[in-house]
């Protein structure tokens, strides 16, 4: 079932070329545009859930323009021939992009035709208990408690949380009454080497003078769980003024005098509303057509976006430093402890622990700090038709912080930029159940574990494409110490101008290197293969081997060292190799790469002759096989 409109133009924001002319299809889940003018069939798929806004622009001579802005920062500018068609598309899109009931979300209809048990296994892929075990929990100081099993402590926390052993049930319940929405201090990350911990909670209901003994005990228990340090930090990630204003509403922040040995700090990260409007300004800059240097730089500055990113990063660095260098535990909160707190805690973990810089690690981190601890994905991402003031790019900012770190430490992450973009896409796509709802309890109620699929196994399948070829391995980098000077923060073209192809490097070095990696792997296989065959070769056919090795010699000769600075071209391979058939497959080494990249590869002989040489060698190896089998 779909709706179809002919004669639709898709304008390209950055190039002046003749707009494509084609057909628009509306399905239940996607808007699909098929370019009829191109020689190759070119399709543009836009998920309805990705659509942030649809705007009808004034009528022009060529038709009725429709501007579609997406949550993954694609901007599609369609021109539809007839006004009536346009209006119909417009109204249907409005309806389709803003589902009212959770059951209408894509995840509930998405069916990858997967056996039931593998779907269930998928949901068990990430087990937080394993991560706590990795940190050495339970231990003498920390325990996993099911105090929240019926959500009686806090309805936005998961049933099981990690609290200090010294905190008994009364302390936990008492503290819950003194914390906004019952979000008590729980462990986020334990730095095993010195027992310093990062904990998170919401703001205390302190007002101007209120105290709570249990809460004070709770903090004391956290401090004492780290015997190496005489004090602990309590970090309020809000600007001081915001926190002060909250006191009038009976909330606020900890009074240093009431708690034993705490050092209280404010870190001024702005609230979700400031962030939302900042992103709005940033996107306006991104949409300016061929901005001058001055437009771009002032626009970037006035948006304040990178300043906010820096604030988050600064806070993460502060936490990591406190834990690593001052050996002090830190308790972090903001207002409710699910936005800024999630950003800051996950970032600090990422800085401290190389595990979180792996595929699995980042998934665990997102699961632990965001999904389970009740970041309101549904509201922040606007999954359902609702209050626009609740929408804010909090997770986007976290993603960007990770990216900024990847820019500064290109060899410290197992994954590449595409992995981040893919996760970011799916946070908004609602194709998988992980990010539906706003807390664990809600997800249970939605039965997402029974009715939907998990994103993580899907991502792991595509691991090859998300790999960072520059990754130096788990052990090389321990803590990261990023630079947080303003010039260290770059504008993330790959995110905010991702769909403007003209803005990106022509031949992505990433593609090169990924290609090299898989070539290398194959070479290794070949080498072992040959090694295994060697014993057979030596004995039966000495003459043939001899003559063969001469041929091989000749072809390898051309590809001899030095590897990278010799004139080489894989097209100069002996033509006989091309008939081999196997070679064709060989070139196509990246099954999951999207079409574009494949094209790039195919007609790019500049893929350092690394490949070429290797292909030559490889095909030599191939040639050898049939002779002796």
């Amino acid at each position, binding site marked *: 079932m779909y709706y179809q409109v002919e004669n639709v133009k898709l304008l390209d924001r950055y*190039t*002046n070329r003749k707009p494509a002319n084609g057909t628009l299809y509306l399905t239940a889940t996607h808007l699909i545009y098929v370019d009829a003018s191109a020689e190759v069939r070119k399709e543009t798929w836009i998920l309805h859930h990705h659509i942030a806004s649809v705007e009808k622009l004034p009528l022009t001579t060529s038709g009725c323009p429709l501007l579609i802005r997406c949550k993954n920062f694609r901007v599609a500018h369609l021109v539809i021939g007839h006004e009536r068609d346009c209006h119909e598309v417009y109204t249907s899109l409005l309806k389709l992009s803003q589902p009212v009931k959770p059951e209408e979300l894509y995840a509930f209809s998405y069916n990858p035709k997967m056996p039931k048990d593998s779907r269930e296994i998928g949901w068990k892929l990430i087990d937080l208990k394993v991560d706590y075990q990795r940190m050495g929990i339970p231990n003498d100081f920390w325990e996993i408690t099911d105090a929240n099993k019926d959500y009686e402590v806090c309805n936005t926390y998961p049933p099981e949380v990690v609290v200090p052993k010294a905190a008994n049930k009364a302390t936990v319940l008492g503290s819950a009454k003194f914390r906004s929405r019952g979000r008590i201090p729980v462990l986020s990350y334990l730095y095993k080497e010195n027992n310093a911990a990062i904990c998170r909670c919401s703001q205390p209901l302190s007002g101007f003078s209120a105290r709570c003994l249990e809460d004070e005990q709770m903090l004391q228990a956290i401090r004492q769980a780290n015997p190496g340090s005489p004090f602990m930090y309590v970090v309020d990630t809000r600007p*001081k*003024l*915001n926190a002060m*204003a909250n006191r009038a509403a009976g909330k606020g922040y900890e009074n240093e005098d009431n708690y034993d040995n705490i050092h209280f700090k404010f870190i001024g990260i702005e609230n979700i509303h400031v962030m939302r409007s900042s992103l709005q300004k940033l996107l306006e*800059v991104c949409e300016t057509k*061929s*901005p001058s*240097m*001055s*437009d*771009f*730089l002032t626009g970037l*500055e006035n948006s304040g976006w990178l300043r906010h990113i*820096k604030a988050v990063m*600064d*806070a993460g660095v*502060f936490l990591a430093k406190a834990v690593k260098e001052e050996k002090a535990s830190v308790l972090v909160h903001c*207002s409710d402890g699910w936005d800024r707190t999630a950003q800051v805690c996950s970032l600090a973990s990422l800085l401290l622990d190389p595990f979180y810089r792996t595929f699995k690690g980042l998934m665990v981190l997102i699961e632990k700090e965001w999904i389970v601890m009740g970041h309101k994905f549904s509201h922040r991402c606007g999954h359902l038709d609702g209050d626009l*003031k609740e929408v804010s790019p909090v997770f986007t900012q976290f993603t960007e912080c990770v990216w900024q770190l990847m820019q500064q*430490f*290109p*060899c*410290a992450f197992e994954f590449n930029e595409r992995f981040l973009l893919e996760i970011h896409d799916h946070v908004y796509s609602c194709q998988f159940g992980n990010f539906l709802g706003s807390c664990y309890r809600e997800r249970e109620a939605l039965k997402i574990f029974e009715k939907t699929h998990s994103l993580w196994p899907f991502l792991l399948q595509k691991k090859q494409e998300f790999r960072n070829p*520059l990754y*130096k391995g788990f052990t090389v*980098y321990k803590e*990261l*110490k990023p630079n947080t000077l*303003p*010039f*260290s923060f770059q504008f993330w073209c790959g995110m905010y*101008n991702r769909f403007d*192809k*003209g803005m990106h*490097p022509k*031949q992505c*070095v990433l593609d090169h290197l990924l290609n*090299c990696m898989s070539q*290398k792997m194959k070479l*290794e296989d070949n*080498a072992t293969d*040959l090694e295994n065959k060697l014993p057979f070769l030596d004995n039966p056919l000495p003459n043939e081997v001899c003559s063969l*090795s001469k041929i*091989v010699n000749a072809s390898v000769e051309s*590809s001899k*060292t030095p*590897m*990278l*600075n010799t*004139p*080489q071209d894989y097209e*100069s391979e002996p033509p006989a190799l091309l008939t081999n058939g196997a070679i064709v497959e060989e070139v196509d080494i990246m099954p999951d790469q999207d079409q574009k990249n494949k*094209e*790039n590869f195919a007609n790019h*002989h*500049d893929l350092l*002759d690394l490949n070429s040489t290797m292909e030559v060698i490889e095909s*030599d190896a191939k040639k050898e096989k049939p002779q002796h089998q």
Partner: protein
Amino acid sequence: MGGVNYVSRRRAALQPEESDEESWEELVPLPPSCPLAGTAAWSWGGREAPGAMLGKGAGGSGAKPAKPSFVSYVSPEEIHKKEPIEKEVNLHLLPGELLLCEANTVLKCVQEDGSNRGACGKLICTNFKIAFLGDESASDDNEPEFKNKIIGENDITLHCIDHIYGVYDEKKKSLSGQLKKYPEKLIIYCKDLRVFHFCLRYTKEEEVKRIVSGIVHHSQTPKLLKRLFLFSYATAAPTNTDIQNQTVMFDAIKDWREELERTKGNMKYKVLNANEAYKVSEKLPLYFVVPMSLSEESILQYQGRGIPIWCWSCHNGASLLKMSAFPKEQEDNTSQMHKIFLDGIYKTINKPPYEVLKTDDLSSSLPSLQDIQAAYIRFKQLFLIDNSTDFWDTDVKWFSLLESTNWLEIVRRCLKKAIEVAEYLEGQNTNVLLVEENASDLCCVISSLVQVMMDSHYRTKFGFQSLIQKEWVMGGHCFLDRCNHLRQNDKEEAPVFLLFLDCVWQLVQQYPPAFEFTETYLTVLSDSLYIPIFSTFFFNSQHQKDTNMSGEGHRAQSSHFRFLTVWDWSVQFESKAQVLLNNPLYVEKPKLDKSQRKTTRFKHQRQLSLPLTQTKSSPKRGFFREETDHFIKNILGKRISKLINSSDELHNNFTEFYDSWHCKPADFHGLLLPHIDGPGIKVWAQRYLRWIPEAQLLGGGTVATATKILDMIEEVQSLQKKMDEKHSLTVPQGREALPMLRNSARLSSLFPFALLQRHSLKPVLPTSTWKDLEDEDDLAKRDDEFVDLSEVI
């Protein structure tokens, strides 16, 4: 006073040959009115140890007035032999370098924290550099791996000094001319953006006077050309005759002929030797290339002005030309004559086979030299930082500060102009004539940028160096004036060459695999502008170099007199350091024979045919190789010249060209167009931030990428070796390993420039909090803090 009086020694040494000039005085800065004038000044008297010894040594050689040079040369060994006691002072003098003054117990402050932490040592000033000889410099254990052999970590060549400030009672004052009062602290800003703080509080007053006035004098006062250290060095240095250099110097007619042949420009253009002995013009090189149809007399008529001079030819036959314009004349008559002359010239070269000609007056379409200089002054201020507090202050407004300098916009405009020119040449088969007053400033920038973008030969190291020889050195760029090496006229100063390097850097960072050299190469090249042992950047023209060389040459009565060229990188770097100048990802242009090319070309052409140019050949393959088909077609098929003045059309052509190129996959050996949208242009971090410890990133940055790539290369090589062994081949020789990049997980991102033993003490608190704490009491004034209770909660 004891020792040899420096002034008189100098006088004795100088007088025989310099008596015709009064210039020797300028070496001796102190007029009688100065309190320092007299016997004490500039003498080694009273100073113990090395100074005195050196004095004796120098005096010894100075006693031979017959020596042809005007300075004497003391070998460093000589000093050492005579002074074994002062072993910690590791004074290394170059040939021809002479110690002028020194001061002991100077404290070199480490910038951060505003504290006076730092090393104690000796500050010296020679006729080549200012150097700080710290105690720790004696120990060679932790020698930096990427070491410049000429300029040490604590050396500043006199030409590299940008500004000198003195600190008086916490106040900073620019130092120049005669000083009445001597500062307690000396701050030296360098042109390579280092900042040195020397505390003189513990130095003897007399020494302070001597060193401060010495430094100020030798670095700030106008100099005569002959006073350049270049000449002292060239006279004194042993000449190594066998300089093997592949860089084409363009000082011989054959170089030009070969270039014409390479670019297939030789059918329409000819090399002239009319300027031998500089008969035509002193601005022009000995040999230059003009359109064949141009008559010799027209060239002679106005000293080469108004003559289109060939720069380069595109594979399709379209050529890039430049012309020095006539100066704006008041007199109608003259300007009328100029106009007639120009019309004649245009007529000649607009005729077939030269087809259409597009003229572009760069002085009106690009920023002026004054604008460039002003922008650069503002720009570099962002990176010349006195202390880290200043630096943290830029925090909040970094991008608007960057924007207000306008430097990046100028870079962008140059790149844009170069794309425009490339579009005419490549897209429209149109000759382009760049016009500028002397055709030696922005002309150089644009023409060399166009060539780098269009001709992959110029993206190799030797090609790039040849290009700089061709367009800049021979092209008569006034390096001496633009760098203000002689300090004669501040108004002439403009960082034109640096602007070019910055533009090239933008290309390098956008297309790393397309260049044989790295950004480190560009950075090091930009530093070489201020090292006066290479002649490359120390003359205004070839004529100036020749006249000064021959003059000195015959007086020196030997052929020993020879300048070094900067392209001999072994002078500055050991071979293991030179490895860092080469890009490991670069792949040379494949050389194929014809039969194989046909098939491959077919494959590529499908994707690459631009809609706007039918005649355009595939840029994928060798630019000038076997393109004759197209070439001849272009010459024979006379295209109807069309007017291309309408700016609207220009804009459309430009964007269409730009866009359609960017829609295609790039060929690193073909045309290369930079991104010129805002996010595409970046700050050349390596050059501008390298000395700022706060900018350091341990284990990160592009260096990390480079090391990883080198690792991968090595791995592949070892695998290949393994394969080869399996095929019972002889073991191929591996690429030279890079020992300095090994074990480098914790390498600083500022490598290879990061200074050792620097620990940045970043505030433990994030800056924003830091600020909060500072401004705690004016919380109420924070107007950006819009607090709506409902929102905050």
